[in-house]
């Protein structure tokens, strides 16, 4: 089962995704993609960690190549995984060490999408959190606009493949596909 959750900054999308994971009767894995290279990231990670405390989630950290998570779980087909988050993973795949900002949009979107779908096919449930970064009407420089298009392509593919798609607005889940 693949569940896609989208929301803006401070929309409560992560808290909602964690609620979903907490209700799973499988082994629960939190797959973190954020690389802590500054105080603000560390603070954000600390806030998310606190939010997860005592919920029995195992934490995996993979800034890229998330399908490798399968080999880190003893029983992947008996496991639910929360991938946090698509926007960060895409940024890592493009701009982090070994990432490829020069690759074509198509290649990037395909490779990242394939990787996430491979993960989804090898676990019981995959919950993917992604970020709505598309509605501020600002014209960005070329690299950022390329990033936006790559992420949007991946999001659309995920939504197409997903059993459920949910948008979170001011903490309220809104059904996009499937039933809440």
């Amino acid at each position: 089962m693949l569940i896609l959750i989208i929301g803006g900054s401070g929309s409560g999308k992560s808290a909602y995704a964690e609620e979903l994971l907490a209700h799973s009767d499988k082994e629960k894995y939190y797959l973190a993609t954020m690389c802590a290279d500054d105080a603000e990231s560390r603070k954000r990670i600390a806030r998310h960690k606190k939010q997860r405390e005592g919920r029995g989630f195992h934490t995996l950290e993979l800034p890229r190549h998330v399908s490798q998570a399968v080999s880190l779980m003893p029983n992947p087909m008996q496991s639910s995984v929360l991938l946090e988050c698509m926007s960060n993973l895409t940024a890592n795949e493009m701009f982090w060490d070994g990432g490829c900002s020069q690759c074509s949009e198509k290649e990037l979107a395909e490779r990242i999408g394939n990787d996430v779908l491979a993960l989804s096919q090898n676990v019981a449930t995959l919950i993917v959190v992604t970020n709505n970064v598309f509605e501020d009407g600002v014209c960005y420089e070329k690299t950022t606009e390329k990033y936006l298009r790559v992420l949007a392509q991946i999001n659309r593919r995920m939504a197409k493949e997903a059993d459920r798609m949910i948008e979170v607005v001011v903490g309220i889940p809104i059904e996009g596909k499937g039933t809440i």
Partner: protein
Amino acid sequence: MELYIGGYAQGKLEYVRRQHPEEDVRIKNGFHLWVRELMEEGKDPEAETQRFLKEHPDAIIISDEIGNGIVPTDAFERDYRERLGRILIRIAAEAERVERVICGIGQRIK
């Protein structure tokens, strides 16, 4: 208490006035800018919001949705989006009614 959210210039105030004629006294329009000003003045918008809600339990709050964009490089702007988002989540949790307005049309989400 009610919350109305939506993008810039989507007709939120007009929509709210249609739903609540002659009740302007209950309306707090531009809530996002109020939060921003409090932050600029170095005040605590979370505490001020709680105080406001206590004093105006039947308020109709109108706020722009500002979180649906690329995360800004400016630390204040990032903080503003994040904090307004979290404040709106708390308001929405307490509100009896939450609507999202787009092109002047309201969609009730709570």
